[in-house]
């Protein structure tokens, strides 16, 4: 089937959102999109039309529109993993990605080290206090296999689980988890950024660095989010 006959066939289709999208693409992009559409099964073709409708709908939420786009991209790109299968194996993807990205490798190393240190500390405290896995599991309303996996470094505890374990063992949470001071500090920074607090002019002046010569270029002051909301509301 030639390109023009394919687009003609699509023009006859009632779904205008998908058609408009295809017609808006140029040359090789349009060809690739149409080829992918022809290649996939009837169900996925119908799904593609519905996804375009979600993307086009002005009432769609940003999360819906974004996910609809991501689904379309997934639908029209065959990307088998290293073993030649669709998708990615979650357990293996970490090691694979860490080999390619040094920053991830150091992150993985740090997580491994945190989990190992936590397991050692937990094991020692449980031994000192003569507490079994079952007893600890009951105290923190968790299963015994979860404790076993934590001790085997196969289960990274959530922050709230750490707090529960610390409370159950009557120890400070800092005795269990390395780097927790840094995590707390980062959480506080994130909380400050999202609490809507506005810095006063005097506070801002206090933080200003006047040691460097200032640019003579003066921009317009930004409008506040409150004013923008009021104008659009």
């Amino acid at each position, binding site marked *: 089937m030639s390109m023009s006959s394919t687009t003609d066939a699509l023009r006859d289709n009632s779904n205008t959102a998908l058609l408009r999208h295809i017609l808006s693409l140029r040359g090789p992009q349009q060809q690739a999109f149409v080829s992918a559409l022809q290649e996939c*099964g009837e*169900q*996925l073709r119908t*799904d593609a039309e*519905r*996804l375009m409708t*979600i993307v086009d709908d002005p009432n*769609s*939420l940003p*999360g*819906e529109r*974004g*996910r*609809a786009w*991501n*689904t379309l*991209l*997934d*639908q029209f*790109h*065959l990307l*088998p993993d290293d073993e*030649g*299968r*669709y*998708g*990615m*194996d*979650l*357990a293996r*993807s*970490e090691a694979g990605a860490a080999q390619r990205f040094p*920053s*991830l490798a150091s*992150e993985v190393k740090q*997580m491994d080290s945190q989990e190992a240190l936590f397991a050692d500390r937990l*094991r020692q405290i*449980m*031994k000192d206090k003569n507490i*079994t*896995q*079952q007893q600890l599991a009951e105290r923190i309303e*968790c*299963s015994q*296999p*979860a404790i*076993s*996996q934590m*001790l*085997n470094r*196969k*289960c*990274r505890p*959530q*922050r*709230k*689980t750490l707090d529960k374990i610390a409370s159950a063992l009557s120890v400070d949470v800092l005795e269990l988890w390395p780097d927790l001071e840094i995590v707390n500090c980062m*959480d506080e*920074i*994130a909380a400050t950024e999202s609490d809507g607090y506005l810095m006063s002019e005097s506070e801002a002046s206090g933080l200003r660095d006047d040691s460097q010569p200032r640019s003579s270029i003066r921009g317009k002051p930004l409008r506040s989010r409150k004013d923008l909301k009021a104008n659009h509301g």
Partner: protein
Amino acid sequence: MKELQHAEIPPRQDVRICLSAFRDAHVILPRLSGRARLRRQALKLQWWNVGDSQVFDLEVHRIGETSFWELLVEEGYGIAPGYRVIVGKAEPYDTLWIISIMTVDEPMTDALIEIFQMRLNIVLERMHVSRNNPFGLT
């Protein structure tokens, strides 16, 4: 203390992530460190028994009457108060598929559930495709 030396529990199933869910993760968690930490939590799904409301220290909820489940990660990584890992099974196969990643404060709408089903359709159509068998012929 012998009780502290339990053997590792072998994983119950493979967990795979579809490409669109991977893209979702990049959108809501732009920092690599956040994604790495979320992945560690999502890996617990290897030991999840479909239907259980908990896997280790994480809660799992069924999404309404659908065949999708959400793993609730109550850690913020400085961006959102927590995350939801949406999973489903492409029956009759055992592999568990991560279909999407959401923040806990995002509303779960009918359109999103429809999109999850469409993602599962892609999994069903594409899971037989490989480099050796590019057209998925059986």
